[in-house]
């Protein structure tokens, strides 16, 4: 019998072949001693493009933004020791939001592991709590199959980051290379289909509901289930809210959409969550920023149907009546097949919702002489036609973007919802540009967040990434200031950003353009001008009202209906 001829390759060569076999187009990374052989092989080929970041945190966030904006796997490559530890914030960010990523980290040679070698750290140990899974490859013979497993685990079930730690000698050693076509693991078999009996029960509940409510989260975006979700909402006529992570899964301009819910969600969405009689939760996890105090949430009796791919997300913070474990598109397809075409009359419920809506909870002062951050975001929405990829950092600007930019499509809103990582926005925008060449990409940020990964302006120059940076500059860590105002007696402890850089000059220093905008009348023209420049990064520094707060707000630990509303209401 003829043996299939295989090639003898080095570990570094195998690694590149694996990336090619997985269809990886872009790797975000930063070289160093332990990964030199890998970089040498990257140099010799042109299928996998490498984007050189300026700090490994940027590499992880960029790979993350690449994945969120495209449904492809984000890949980053870092060296051992500080290379890996710098990436940890980015890995933890991706883990909290269930983003499929593969992180390749160099490691000291196997003979040196455990000897406190130069740039050695226990990468597998350090990342264990913030990855879906990780591997240390001790033998080059295991490399290909480990890579296959890494991509398989990252993308199936509840997605997440997977780290592959590769000692330097493994990148040099050789073996025959064959990339496995498929992989099966006895310990890892994520479900797809939901339980038929449970689905039947769910449909029954939905059809009998008098005050139904649908609450969908990041899971719908991650599993590409927007089409089914829209179908479900249109066929039932039910109201729907999205979590911060789920925005865009349902078009924000539609009448049945009640806006985002949660700590800074709309009055109507939060009220409907509390007063509904049947709640359908899809790919969401009832976290503390969404339902507030679980005991308060449980005060109102309602039947809860919870669809999620991850059983551990179900019945974690609230009691669930009908748990359905499964892949969301599959489960929704099954539900849609069982739904009768006759809608139940829920006009009373809609009347109630209309009353709540009448509060106009996102109202702000439109006659202010100062630039209101909400106004900037409304204009951003208008100028980009609602069709941009918007990344954000963390804080007030993030919440305003979520409230005021009406996302019509999934994967357009890219933010660190779980970990809340300042510094995420700019590198994530780089990833979004790389995944969507030619698309409009804007990073909504603040003067504090932007400074956490500012060095990536240099990467943007090198690769001509035409990101529009919308800097809402109120000279404060705004969300910290807001909490200090509300809950700490106006003692603004260390939240004032003294000695801010001149952002215009700073952008210019990196080879970009910058504009400072101080008057409301200049907001729209500045945005129009910037977005006309399709090839350039423009840094727009909006000097905004320092005292503006994000409303509504559920104080930490309070119930979902215990909202603080704007003084203007």
């Amino acid at each position, binding site marked *: 019998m003829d043996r299939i001829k295989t090639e003898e390759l080095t570990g570094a060569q195998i690694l590149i072949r694996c990336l090619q076999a997985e269809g990886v187009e872009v790797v975000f990374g930063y070289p160093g001693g332990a990964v030199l052989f890998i970089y040498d092989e990257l140099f010799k080929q042109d299928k996998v493009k490498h984007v050189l970041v300026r700090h490994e945190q940027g590499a992880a966030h960029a790979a993350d933004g690449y994945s969120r904006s495209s449904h492809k796997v984000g890949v980053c490559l870092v060296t051992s020791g500080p290379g890996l530890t710098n990436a940890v914030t980015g890995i933890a960010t991706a883990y909290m939001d269930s983003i499929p990523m593969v992180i390749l980290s160099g490691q000291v040679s196997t003979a040196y592991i455990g000897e406190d070698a130069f740039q050695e750290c226990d990468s597998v*140990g350090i990342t264990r709590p913030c990855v879906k899974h990780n591997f240390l490859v001790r033998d080059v013979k295991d490399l290909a199959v480990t890579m296959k497993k890494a991509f398989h685990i990252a993308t199936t079930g509840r997605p997440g980051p997977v780290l592959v730690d590769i000692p330097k000698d493994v990148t040099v050693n050789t073996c025959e290379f064959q990339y496995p076509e498929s992989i099966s693991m006895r*310990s890892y078999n994520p479900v797809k289909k939901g339980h038929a009996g449970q689905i039947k029960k769910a449909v029954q509940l939905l059809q009998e509901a008098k005050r139904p409510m649908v609450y969908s989260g990041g899971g719908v975006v991650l599993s590409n289930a927007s089409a089914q979700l829209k179908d479900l909402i249109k066929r039932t006529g039910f109201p729907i809210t999205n979590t911060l992570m789920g925005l865009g899964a349902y078009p924000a301009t539609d009448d049945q959409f009640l806006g985002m819910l949660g700590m800074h969600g709309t009055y109507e969405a939060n009220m409907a969550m509390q007063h509904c009689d049947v709640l359908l939760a899809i790919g969401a996890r009832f976290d503390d920023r969404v339902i507030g105090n679980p005991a308060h949430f449980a005060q109102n009796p309602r039947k809860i149907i919870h669809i999620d791919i991850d059983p551990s997300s179900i019945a974690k913070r609230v009691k669930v009546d009908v748990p359905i474990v499964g892949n969301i598109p599959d489960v929704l397809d099954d539900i849609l097949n069982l739904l009768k075409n006759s809608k139940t009359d829920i006009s009373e419920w809609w009347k109630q919702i209309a009353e709540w809506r009448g509060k106009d909870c996102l109202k702000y002062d439109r006659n202010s002489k100062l630039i209101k951050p909400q106004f900037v975001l409304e204009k951003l929405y208008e100028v980009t036609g609602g069709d941009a990829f918007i990344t954000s950092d963390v804080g007030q600007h993030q919440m305003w973007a979520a409230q005021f930019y009406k996302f019509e499509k999934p994967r357009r809103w890219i933010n660190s919802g779980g970990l809340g990582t300042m510094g995420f926005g700019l590198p994530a925008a780089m990833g979004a540009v790389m995944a969507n060449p030619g698309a409009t990409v804007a990073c909504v940020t603040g003067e504090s967040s932007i400074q956490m990964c500012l060095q990536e302006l240099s990467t943007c120059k090198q690769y001509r990434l035409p990101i529009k940076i919308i800097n809402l500059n109120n000279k404060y860590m705004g969300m910290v200031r807001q909490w200090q105002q509300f809950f700490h007696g106006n003692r603004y402890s260390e939240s004032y950003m003294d000695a801010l850089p001149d952002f215009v000059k700073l952008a210019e220093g990196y080879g970009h353009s910058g504009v400072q905008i101080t008057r409301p009348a200049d907001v729209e023209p500045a945005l129009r001008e910037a977005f006309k420049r399709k090839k350039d990064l423009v840094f727009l520094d909006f000097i905004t009202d320092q005292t503006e707060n994000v409303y509504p707000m559920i104080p930490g630990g309070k119930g979902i209906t215990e909202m603080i509303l704007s003084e203007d209401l």
Partner: protein
Amino acid sequence: MRHIISILVENEAGALSRISNMFSARGYNIESLTVAPTEDASMSRLTVVTKGSDDVIEKITKQLNKLVEVVKVVDLSEAEHIERELMLIKVRAGVKEREDVKRMADIFRGRVIDVSDNTYTIELTGEGAKLDAFIQALDQSTILETVRTGASGIGRGNRILRV
């Protein structure tokens, strides 16, 4: 309530640490933990004794199942099961104490497995409570050293945990 959970896990470096890390990261309690390979060398079996309400135990089993290397999880306390723990205990046993120590070991069906001029080392298996009782029954001042394995458990009759 006390629960005894059995876990089949791939016999890979770091698997144990993933499991113990999950307990500490999520604030679950571990009373004891034992681990060793099974008849299939590619797999290890862990027994964890933990305490918690039904809600917490459900969360623990879900989180364990979520770990990529975990093959199977069973809460043995849900049904009839047997559990055993091994203790080695070294006691002072000079001429004066020998008789008493030996008699006590016999009562508890322990075996003396090592002897020196002034010590006995006794091996004792049983449920945790029995081992506790043996320690209590001894003259406390004679105990020199104890080592316990923590509980291992297995289902009764046809209740079988395997792949």
